[in-house]
């Protein structure tokens, strides 16, 4: 108690011109409007959700370890896959990026805080309730949602197990949280940049979050709309997706994927930003083709609005539609290719060193590209009829979301941990985390490509005997990958508790305003904006 008082009074000395000084204990976190505190909350929350969603995946992989039904019933298996997907998308990846945005954007653009600090507090603190509702439905009579994270009607309406209302309200809250977070990010970037920081001088990290913010503002309301339609279809007798009343279940898929495709870029554009920050730092070179990166990110965002129906090739679209969506989808490979080549060109003839953030970033570039290639294969309409709803699709989106988004989050976490905690993390333990993750994640997801090509459908608790060997290896990879993430937890806890003192700029090649402040970053930074030339 006395030390806390001393700390508090010390803070008061340092920040005597600020009204909001740190409160103590739980109140500090409940009432905080400080971007760094909220960033920390987001990051911890997303890590807890990662472990929760991961635990569900462990049960899924345990069930799939061998053919036949061993551990769970098919209906419960469906609940596991559904909630696993929802938690990883809305609970792990998206909040982690919001955490990065909160922590780093004000420090990168020389702003004292986010533009809307009180709303920032709200947008975080409603999230735990959303996931309490979602996870709580496991303990309800109905069980958790079992209709897949894509909640296609009529699975989620006519044939729902009764969990639709819980699901809808959880998604509403997540959506409101994301929209508030996105508005905050966009307003901060538009209005709080340090004098002299023009848009084209912003770090690419800030650019990607800026564009992601706009994507969120554009499509999260559509998600809110479509789940509202589900709700009224299920409980209030409307017929948006019910053919009996003149509705159309295929329309559900159109509206859902109109949200859903930009959503996948919401989960990868910030990853591009993180990797574009880290690769130059450890190559000791400027990012190759900064402006082309900005334009590539923007074109990916724009194209994401006109490709949604590539998720629906098998719904009986006319040939023209299939061709249109196929070519538009393949067009996205162009700006994405620009990015990949820019990263490689940044590394070309650089003075590379391979600290853990760099290792994760390089793994990101290679493995995300593999995920991109399988995406291209899926974009081809004729072959999509074979790949649709198989493990090939599962392999594809796990390569882009796990070895893509999640690896970039790890890269970023290691990169900025010294700035966040003031201590260097344990490099050798971190390397263990990297190599264990890298090997196990490929053992986990790579054989899924072959399973899919051989015809193993996704979302099934049991499978034909010929898939048994691969599934065994996939499960072993899954367990190993799950356990490897505990190493990360250990690294972070060790780093918070102590370790070598981190200098203001622990990475000699790093650039940006965040390295001009001390490590750990003081509670308030850039109260007077820095000058940027």
């Amino acid at each position, binding site marked *: 108690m006395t030390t806390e008082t001393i700390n508090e009074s010390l803070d008061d000395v340092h920040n005597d011109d600020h009204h909001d000084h740190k409160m103590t204990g739980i109140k500090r976190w409940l009432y905080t409007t400080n971007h760094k505190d909220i960033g920390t909350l987001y990051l911890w929350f997303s890590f807890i959700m990662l472990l929760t969603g991961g635990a569900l995946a462990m049960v899924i992989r345990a069930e799939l370890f061998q053919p036949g039904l061993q551990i769970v019933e098919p209906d419960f298996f469906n609940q596991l896959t559904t909630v696993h997907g929802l938690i990883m998308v809305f609970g792990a990846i998206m909040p982690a990026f919001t955490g990065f945005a909160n922590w780093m954007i004000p420090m990168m653009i020389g702003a004292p805080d986010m533009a809307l600090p009180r709303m920032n507090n709200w947008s975080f603190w409603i999230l735990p309730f959303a996931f309490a509702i979602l996870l709580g439905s496991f303990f309800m009579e109905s069980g958790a949602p079992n209709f897949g994270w894509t909640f296609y009607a009529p699975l989620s309406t006519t044939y729902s197990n009764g969990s639709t209302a819980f699901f809808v309200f959880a998604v509403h809250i997540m959506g409101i949280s994301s929209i508030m977070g996105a508005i905050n990010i966009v*307003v901060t970037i538009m209005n709080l940049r340090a004098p002299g920081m023009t848009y084209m001088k912003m770090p690419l990290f800030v650019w990607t979050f800026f564009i992601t913010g706009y994507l969120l503002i554009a499509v999260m309301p559509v998600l809110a*709309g479509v789940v509202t339609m589900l709700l009224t279809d299920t409980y209030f007798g409307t017929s948006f997706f019910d*053919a009996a*009343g*003149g509705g*159309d279940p295929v329309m559900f898929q159109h509206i859902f994927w*109109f949200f859903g495709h930009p959503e996948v870029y919401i989960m990868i554009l910030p990853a591009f930003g993180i990797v574009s920050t880290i690769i130059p730092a450890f190559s000791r070179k400027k990012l190759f083709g900064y402006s082309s990166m900005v334009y590539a990110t923007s074109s990916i965002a724009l194209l994401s609005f006109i490709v949604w129906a590539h998720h629906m090739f098998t719904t009986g679209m*006319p040939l023209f539609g299939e061709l249109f969506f196929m070519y538009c989808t393949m067009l996205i490979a162009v700006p994405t290719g620009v990015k990949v080549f820019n990263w490689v060109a940044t590394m070309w003839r650089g003075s590379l060193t391979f600290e853990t953030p760099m290792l994760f970033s390089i793994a990101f570039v290679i493995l995300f590209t593999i995920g991109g290639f399988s995406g291209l294969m899926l974009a081809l309409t004729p072959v999509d009829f074979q790949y649709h709803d198989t493990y090939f699709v599962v392999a594809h989106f796990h390569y882009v979301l796990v070895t893509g988004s999640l690896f970039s989050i790890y890269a970023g976490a290691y990169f900025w941990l010294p700035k966040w905690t003031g201590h260097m993390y344990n490099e050798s333990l971190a390397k263990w985390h990297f190599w264990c993750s890298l090997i196990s994640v490929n053992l986990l997801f790579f054989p899924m490509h072959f399973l899919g090509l051989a015809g193993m459908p996704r979302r099934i608790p049991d499978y034909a005997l010929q898939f048994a060997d691969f599934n065994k290896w996939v499960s072993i990879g899954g367990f190993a990958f799950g356990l490897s993430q505990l190493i990360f937890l250990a690294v972070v806890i060790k780093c918070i508790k102590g370790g070598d003192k981190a200098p203001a700029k622990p990475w000699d090649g790093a650039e940006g305003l965040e390295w001009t402040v001390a490590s750990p970053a003081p509670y308030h930074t850039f109260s007077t904006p820095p000058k940027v030339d």
Partner: protein
Amino acid sequence: MSEGTEQEVIKQQNNSKVIKKLVLVVFAMFGFGFALVPLYDVFCDITGLNGKTNSSGVAYAADGIDTSRTIKVQFITRMAKGIPWQFEPVTNEISVHPGEMKFVNFYAKNKSHRDIIGQAVPSVSPGIAAGYFQKIECFCFTQQPLKAGEEVEMGLQFYVDLDLPSEITTLTLSYTLYDISGKVDS
């Protein structure tokens, strides 16, 4: 200090301008989600994308009969979950020339002990052909109330447009029968 507050005020005004715009976008996009519903219907109406056929009768308007082409028209029926009816086409398949008018019957029987109002919803496959399948008279235009145990033969009169794309040689007309008693009552 006073200079600082002045800047703060300007900053806040700027903020609220941007916030207002963004919130407007949020509401507009929420509305857009719902606007997609009628837009989708209109779009499908024009292009015939989703296999929906005309929902009220049209007058016969073909310019003669093209006897050089023969189109196979198949009829299938299915019962939605929970409707205790028997519902099947009397003729499973007929051949028509484009422009030729045909009349077929469907048989329905309410096998339950309660009165039920049914609604048959048609769908044509391939979807692109839906716009060329013209129904002059169809039981699906109205609801079908059947008393307990009652049976009925219901007619469908149709023709296929002369300009049906030449690659289409077979049309499948599928009826799904729904129990809408609850919805009609309320």
